[in-house]
């Protein structure tokens, strides 16, 4: 029997989580804030105490039970043991890190950012996006490059990939048909242009630099589509040698990490909105994990930027099999006659299609049927609505009078908007999804702030928060936080060091060109919001 297998570490980690949740729960029941609750009050995380307790309790219980099991039956032979029991210690440790970053480090940086604002002239925590996502990734990077990943954590760290996939699949439930149609159309145009453009640019640049064809092929996929994942897909097709893979992957990771830290502050400085930044991150950031990370660094409080960025990300992932086919044909052209005609388009399409995208689409389809929302609630635009006549949803009389007077001025020239406002005055509340759009559109016919606020308020009154969706959203954020800390732990200095030679030159030129061009396109040409 292996001594390592008898390790009590899983149980210890489970008990830490359990103890934290129990202490927090007991202190939360006291009338005056003490201990951890007092700290939470100071850090302004009081509202999250309920989540902290429930997540801590459940994860603590599960991890502790697995810890006892691991001590009682140390041998891990079955698939279940390897998939569930072995990773539990690492999962627990990453959860502790997620707690530390989300509930302690982020609030501390927020306070420091505000305190340093008079001296610096800007809020450093806000501008540099020092939230739990960025801090979690940084913590992961520092951890792996200093103390390294101990044996008991390794299986758990590998589950970060699964967490990312579960996060994206869950995100599928958060889109409305309108959003998906609009974002889908926009992303296909943008991604097609930039994926094809960058891939071709790299082929040309590689030829110019007289680089080896396999290296050019791997770089073309990686820089054009989705970073390391695309390089992995393309390497066997273009018969990449070891050195080609090391150089390309090191460079893709390096350029991707730089993008992750540079994109959010730049967007904040120029005042990009969620649609613009989501589109930019989804087009310009190389690695797909870093797209989700950048979107959450830019906007950790709502999921709007993440929704935009992930649609762009998924669109470009869908381009991957096609780019691999193009590269296979391109590579075969430069090879011996015997190598030609070996590309099976059907096989490549099936092989390179990431299956979790299907999960995302299935989740979207389920959500569209309304199974996650109580009866009468519907997702329209980015909000859920409930249009059942209810006194609580009535617009204030003073606002109704203002709207009525506004209608009489004849300023509203659109008959549909006019009718929607008339109905609002008559019913005292919005009663349909179409009417919400028209009432919000009425803002275009006035410059009065009070009137605009009244239209927004009427819309807000009929918005609803379905409990299941709120819960799914909260857990989804945990999955992303967990996944990104775990993926941060895969960014090793050793891998970054591999960037070099012609790969570095091509990567830097193509990466910067793609990021810059997509920035201007998103900033100047994409208007409005989702």
């Amino acid at each position, binding site marked *: 029997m292996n001594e390592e297998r008898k390790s009590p570490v899983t149980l210890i980690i489970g008990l830490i989580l359990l103890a934290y949740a129990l202490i927090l729960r007991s202190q939360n029941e006291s009338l005056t804030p003490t201990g951890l609750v007092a700290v939470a009050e100071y850090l302004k995380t009081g509202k999250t105490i309920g989540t902290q307790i429930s997540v801590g309790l459940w994860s603590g219980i599960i991890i502790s039970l697995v810890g006892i099991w691991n001590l009682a039956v140390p041998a891990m032979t079955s698939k279940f043991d390897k998939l569930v029991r072995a990773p539990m210690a690492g999962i627990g440790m990453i959860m502790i890190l997620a707690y530390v970053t989300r509930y302690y480090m982020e609030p501390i940086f927020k306070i420091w950012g505000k305190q340093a604002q008079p001296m610096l002239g800007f809020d450093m925590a806000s501008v540099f996006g020092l939230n739990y996502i960025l801090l979690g990734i940084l913590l992961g990077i520092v951890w792996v490059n200093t103390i390294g990943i101990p044996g008991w954590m390794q299986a758990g760290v590998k589950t970060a990939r699964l967490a990312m996939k579960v996060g994206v699949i869950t995100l599928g439930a958060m889109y409305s048909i309108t959003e998906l149609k609009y974002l889908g159309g926009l992303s296909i145009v943008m991604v097609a242009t930039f994926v094809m453009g960058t891939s071709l640019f790299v082929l040309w640049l590689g030829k110019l630099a007289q680089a080896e064809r396999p290296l050019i092929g791997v770089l073309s996929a990686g820089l054009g589509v989705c970073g390391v*994942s695309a*390089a992995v*897909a393309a*390497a066997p097709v273009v018969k990449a*040698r070891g050195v080609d893979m090391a150089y390309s992957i090191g460079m893709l990771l390096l350029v991707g990490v730089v993008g992750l830290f540079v994109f959010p502050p730049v967007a904040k400085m120029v005042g990009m909105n969620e649609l613009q930044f989501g589109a930019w991150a989804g087009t310009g950031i190389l690695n797909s994990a870093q797209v989700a990370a950048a979107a959450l660094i830019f906007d950790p409080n709502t999921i709007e930027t993440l929704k935009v960025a992930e649609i762009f990300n998924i669109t470009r992932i869908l381009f991957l099999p096609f780019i691999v086919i193009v590269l296979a044909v391109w590579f075969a052209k430069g090879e011996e006659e015997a190598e030609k005609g070996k590309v099976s388009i059907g096989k490549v399409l099936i092989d390179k299609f990431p299956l979790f995208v299907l999960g995302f689409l299935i989740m979207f389809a389920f959500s569209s049927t309304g199974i996650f929302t109580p009866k009468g609630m519907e997702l329209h635009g980015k909000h859920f609505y409930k249009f059942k006549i209810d006194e609580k949803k009535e617009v204030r009389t003073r606002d109704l009078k203002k709207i009525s007077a506004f209608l009489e001025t004849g300023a509203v020239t659109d008959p549909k908007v006019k009718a929607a406002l008339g109905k609002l005055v008559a019913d005292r509340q919005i009663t349909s999804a179409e009417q919400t759009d028209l009432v919000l559109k009425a803002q275009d016919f006035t410059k009065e702030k009070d009137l605009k606020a009244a239209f927004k308020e009427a819309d807000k009154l009929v918005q609803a928060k379905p409990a299941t969706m709120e819960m799914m959203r909260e857990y989804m954020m945990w999955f992303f936080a967990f996944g990104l800390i775990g993926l941060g732990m895969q960014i090793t200095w*050793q891998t970054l060091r591999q960037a070099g030679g012609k790969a570095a030159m091509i990567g830097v030129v193509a990466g910067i060109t793609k990021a810059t061009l997509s920035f201007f396109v998103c900033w100047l040409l994409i208007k409005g919001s989702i």
Partner: protein
Amino acid sequence: MIRTILVATHGSKGAVEAERCALDLAATHDAELHALYVIHKGWGSLVGIEWLHSSEKRMDFYRYAEAELYKMADAALGKFVQRAAACGVKVTTSVRVGDPGEVILSEARERGSDLIVIGDACKGRSEEYKAKINVGKLLRSAPCSVLQAKVLARGKDTALTGEACASRLQGIAQG
């Protein structure tokens, strides 16, 4: 008396210098020569950040990469064996995966080597996974003497004899 020599190689400029040195010494001392090629364990975590593909597809990539790395190792060792044969020195070879420093030490212990010959980390384009051996640690833990072959500046004679090689000895004899 040097009876068994272990030379670490991976085809880089520094490693080729170590090969030359080892060949000269083996010829001079009529010693057994073993060439070790270490595939760096860092290859295993090179695509750690990749998360889109299924574990099966990722394994396909690793299998492909592994085959390529073994091809590269066989090619480098094949060249060395040819050079050794030309010098009349018989050489055995092996390929192992791990941290180069640790693998060299364990191989030297297992084989009871009298001398370990390693190359110098050279500047310029490398055709290999970039990772330096912790020479200090290797010297401290080595079960025998360690020789680090120095790559000379361009233009200088790099064809070493056993004596010339010994004069460029950088390693510190141990135990």
